[in-house]
């Protein structure tokens, strides 16, 4: 879209939002009399869609974030050699010079074979374990990457790294970058929404979806499971809907008068913000109301009680958000940190959490596809890192944090379907071909959205901040269909 068209669209948008109360034409003529240019710039609504750097393959992103670091060795990485050599020390050559979390406490260097059963699925005979039967059923839709690689091995820094491209606190998150770069196509909800499930919130908290040096307009807005879905969404108890509408109308009229008197376009932006806020008051509850979904759809996701908060319900909401044009949706599900402690072992707790996410994740991909939304929507599944081939023995068996190679999958939005990319050694310790660094994932994601990761930058403290950082990042063309 060229800038003239953009200005025209913006102008229309502004006036279409101001049809109540003072008429738009009246406003325009008032402002013209005062010599004020009608607010046509992006500044009056920073979330308006913006032109991409080049034609995009995808419009929306859903990131299913498995917080805690899911094990690849019990899910997608079939390693018979590891099982065969269970209990043997890992050859020194693998671990020399490496640092691990909890190195001095519970870390052990003996190999731990997986006890799961693996089978081949799909057109290419992709290995998937018995823990993910539904995911196994959709492997033909996925690009499974076994050689993902990150830099940091503690939870919070690694989560920041996956989300912001930096281990530092307070950098803009992926969703903030994407909405900053593209705006949003949803007129009555924020452009970046976050949904959470599991026993507790992800480590790192709100910083994971923060906007960092970007304006707060672009920060992720958590859709809450209890109370108002968005903070302060509900009109105060004693106020009627009519009174709230009158409030919004009166504030708009008074603000318009001040706009005319002062000529400050910022007031036009505020008028728009109040309109969006008011729309959110009805659109967000409408979003959360899934009573219109068919029993078949609920079954597909495995939702038993649609009013109960769960990962499955969040997957369904993610689809509904995509339907409404929300740009970036991130789900967090805890807890994948299976060290082998009393509440986090591979025998009992891993199967439980796999069951919590397997059916709904697969359902989301299938549901998007049958509704024709998958072509435009990227779905990502993965965590901040994977887990070591070496076992960790606490009260039970588990695995430590591992950053050299772990598995993520990608679907839709231009990703090639039905492939496994990257190969690891016999223990699944490190890549033997096609490593994919977190920054490469970011570069690829932005590329599919029509953004050049070099160009999506913002200057702060003398540095140009980018999602992909300073070190080289590569668009992984092999992943693109």
């Amino acid at each position, binding site marked *: 879209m060229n800038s003239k068209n953009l200005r025209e669209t913006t102008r229309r948008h502004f006036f279409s939002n101001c049809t109540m109360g003072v008429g738009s034409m009246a406003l325009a003529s008032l402002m013209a009399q005062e*010599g*004020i*240019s009608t607010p046509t710039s992006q500044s009056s609504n920073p979330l308006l869609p913006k032109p991409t750097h080049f034609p995009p393959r995808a419009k929306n992103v859903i990131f299913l974030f498995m917080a805690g670091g899911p094990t690849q060795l019990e899910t997608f990485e079939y390693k018979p050699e590891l099982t065969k050599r269970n209990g043997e020390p890992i050859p020194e050559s693998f671990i020399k010079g490496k*640092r691990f*979390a909890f190195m001095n406490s519970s870390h052990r260097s003996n190999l731990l074979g997986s006890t799961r059963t693996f089978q081949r699925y799909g057109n290419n005979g992709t290995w998937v374990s018995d823990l993910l039967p539904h995911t196994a059923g959709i492997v033909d839709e996925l690009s499974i990457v076994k050689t993902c690689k990150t830099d940091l091995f*503690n*939870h*919070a820094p690694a989560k920041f790294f996956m989300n912001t491209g930096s281990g*530092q*606190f*307070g950098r803009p998150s992926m969703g903030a970058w994407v909405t900053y770069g593209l705006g949003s196509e949803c007129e009555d909800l*924020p452009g970046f929404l976050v949904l*959470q499930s599991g026993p507790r*919130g*992800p*480590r*790192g*908290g*709100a*910083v994971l979806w923060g906007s960092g040096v970007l*304006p*707060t*307009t672009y920060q992720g807005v958590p859709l809450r499971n*209890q*109370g108002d879905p*968005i*903070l*302060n969404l*509900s009109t*105060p108890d*004693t106020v009627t809907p009519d*009174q709230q509408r*009158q*409030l*919004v109308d*009166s*504030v708009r009229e*008074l*603000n318009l*008068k001040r706009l005319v*008197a*002062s000529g*400050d376009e*910022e007031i036009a932006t*505020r008028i728009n*913000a*109040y309109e*969006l*806020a*008011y729309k*959110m008051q009805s659109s967000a509850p409408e979003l959360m109301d899934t009573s219109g979904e068919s029993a078949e759809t609920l079954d597909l996701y495995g939702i038993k009680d649609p009013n109960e908060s769960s990962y499955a319900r969040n997957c369904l909401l993610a689809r509904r958000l995509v339907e409404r044009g929300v740009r970036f949706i991130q789900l967090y599900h805890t807890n994948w940190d299976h060290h082998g402690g009393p509440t986090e072992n591979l025998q009992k707790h891993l199967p439980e959490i796999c069951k919590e996410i397997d059916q709904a994740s697969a359902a989301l991909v299938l549901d998007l596809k049958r509704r024709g939304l998958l072509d435009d929507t990227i779905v990502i599944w993965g965590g901040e890192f994977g887990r070591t081939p070496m076992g960790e023995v606490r009260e039970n068996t588990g695995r430590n944090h591992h950053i050299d190679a772990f598995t993520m999958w990608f679907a839709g939005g231009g990703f090639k379907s039905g492939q496994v990319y990257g190969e690891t050694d016999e223990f699944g310790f490190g890549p033997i071909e096609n490593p994919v660094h977190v920054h490469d994932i970011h570069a690829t994601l932005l590329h599919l959205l029509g953004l050049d990761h*070099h*160009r999506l930058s*913002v*200057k702060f*403290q*003398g*540095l*140009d901040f980018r999602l992909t950082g*300073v070190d080289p990042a590569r668009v992984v063309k092999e992943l693109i269909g």
Partner: protein
Amino acid sequence: MTRKKRQFKLVQIPVSVRFFAVCVWSAISITTLPAGDVETGNRVVDDDESGVAVAFNREIRPILAENCYACHGFDEASREADLRLDTLDEAIGSDSGSAIVPGKPQESEFVSRILSEDSDLLMPPPDTGKQLTEQQKQTLRRWVQQGAHYDAHWAFTPPKLLAPPIIAGVSHPIDRFIHARLNDESIRPSARAGLETLIRRVSLDLTGLPPTPEQIDVFVRESETDASAAYRELVDRLLASPHYGERWGRWWLDQARYADSNGYSIDGPRSIWKYRDWVVDALNQDMRFDTFTIEQLAGDLLPQATQSQKVATGFHRNTQINQEGGIDTEQFRVDSIFDRVATTGTVWLGLTIGCAQCHDHKFDPITQVEYYRMFAFLNNQDEPTMKVYQPNVDVDALASELKTVKQTLTEFLSARNDQIDAWGKAVADDAKKKLPSAVRKALDTEDAKRSFDHKRELFAEAVKAGAIEDENGMFESLTKRYTDLDDALNKTDTTLVLSERSERRKSHVLIKGDFTRPADEVSPGTPSILHPLGEVSDPPNRLDLARWITRPENPLTSRVIVNRIWQQYFGRGLSEIENDFGLQGAPPSHPELLDWLALEFIRQDWSLKQIHRLIVTSQTYQQASTFRKDLQDIDPDNYLLARQQRLRLDAEIVRDVALVASGLLAPKLGGPPVFPPIPDGVMSQGQVRRSWETSRGDDRYRRGIYTFKFRATPPPSLNVFDAPDGFSTCTRRIRSNTPLQALTLMNDPAYFEFATALQKIIQQDGIQVAFRRCTSRPPTDDELAILDRLDTLGAARALLNLDETITRE
């Protein structure tokens, strides 16, 4: 020039370097108007060709810095083709020929390469994403034609004292600089703002609180007699108000990255509010800014350092602390030093020193070794928690008295041991159950093993039970004294401070900033591009660093600080990029004024209040902010300041204004952070559920600066209005304008409570009064008509939601 073509080819450049080159491409473009034509120490060359002289600092350096220095600048590691363009000597080269031949563009490869139509030859290389405009190319060519004169970077040369231009009828020095520039452009300044706008503006700017209707009336009345005297008195009153320290304290706390929690993922609470109170108090006392600086950076190193001077070192304790399990503590300690170096550089020097952590600075002449020499200054302290005693407490005297009292009390109790024991044995089992747990514990302890506290408990209980007589109240008075002394000495507030180590910690260059890869050892030192460190202790320490920063010959600090103050008043500094005065920064719009203010700041004994007074008494500050049709094309972004600027209030002040308007504000100064009401469930996000027990009484209605701030889950109503999170230094707040702000003002329980209080004011005093409490002006008839359609609660809510209420005009 013998350089071969392939040397310039981008394929030769390591990928990482190319990245940095692209890095320079910026999404935020900064428009700057050229500075005035007054000689400012920058060479202005007579043109021998086109009749237009090219000024290096203003026209050439920004082009070179933006497009060339990443590969042909200061950083040796990323330098391409062995060519530097950041100094004349290097650019004219030596044996192997020169890129630039002064006066001869046709012989300068620099010129032919930027003009080249061959994409293999063109500079900057097209795939860096950089492109010179035709005008930039011609400016560079003309510069070479005129002799390729380089000037020292403006911010690295000391400010020049130039008398303000003489303008008939204009006396204030700031106005003389500003009006001279406006006159050049044939623009007239705006008229003085209306009295109500003015008092609201200056009250909010100096104290963060709006004026009361009574204060407005007084000001309007007194202005009728003598407008300028009335305004002067108003400014004096505001500067003397203790709320001045709160408002400008918050300005400094942003830079200090102050918050009340440890950060990272656990983000547990911490106690460092004594440092916050120190800042507020120091500003209220108008502590000299050089002293203010020295105490914060090195108060512990001052001779006979006072408690207050030690509290001040909390500045650099506002770094995060990682409480996660399984971490390498040294890694996070080093990270905190990185933050301290970067923050010191940004806050006081306006330099992005932090950029040289992993490699030599790409743009500014700061080497990686110099970075680690700065690091070495800040790498030699322990980081204890300090008890803070009430002022005037003589700790030694109290401690010695405590010892005496304890001794007396011990002897007193020993003498009555038998009585105590006898009483203890006589207590029946069912009576024992009703005793306080401390007493029961003491009873359960064997006689011989009973501690001092056990005996005290028992004796007190025995007296209470009437079993033993406290003759002359001896025990009671001794105990009271003992408890008072113990409380004064041991149950104090605490704060985080720096404390220099006696044994030096070695500092090394860390390869790529990686703490596991130390290289050469370094000693403390300052960048050679700036003034010399001067006479120092051996080895130099933090105090030497602090004194070096506050030397009058430092070209940066006074400029950086006055610029950052200016930014608060006009929404933008005289140099727009307030945190980078280096080569990548923005040349000031009014360089002479910036220099004049910087020198005036020092001349006025580093008095911040004097600088505030100076700025707010100018006509430039007092003029109307109303948009002007005639400026729309000439100066749409108001760089020339022919009008004031409407600015949305800072997050804390949005709250404060609502509190004052609704009559709820509890104006108490200082003390522990408070917990005003927040929406349910906010604190349960993230790894740790944080406790937020809502404060009672006045603490519900304290100013925003006192709200407890968890870094990872900041209070939402402040967060949505862009209050910084305290993860790193913030020298300029973003002013966003979002629907979540609207939801907050409309629906947040705290704001609804404010509205209810304002409703009562409407019911008692009428809508006009309430309107005035929010905006400082009476409503127009039109506005009244709109408000009259609403019930009183609706009207109160509408008033708190007005753009005008949360804006200073």
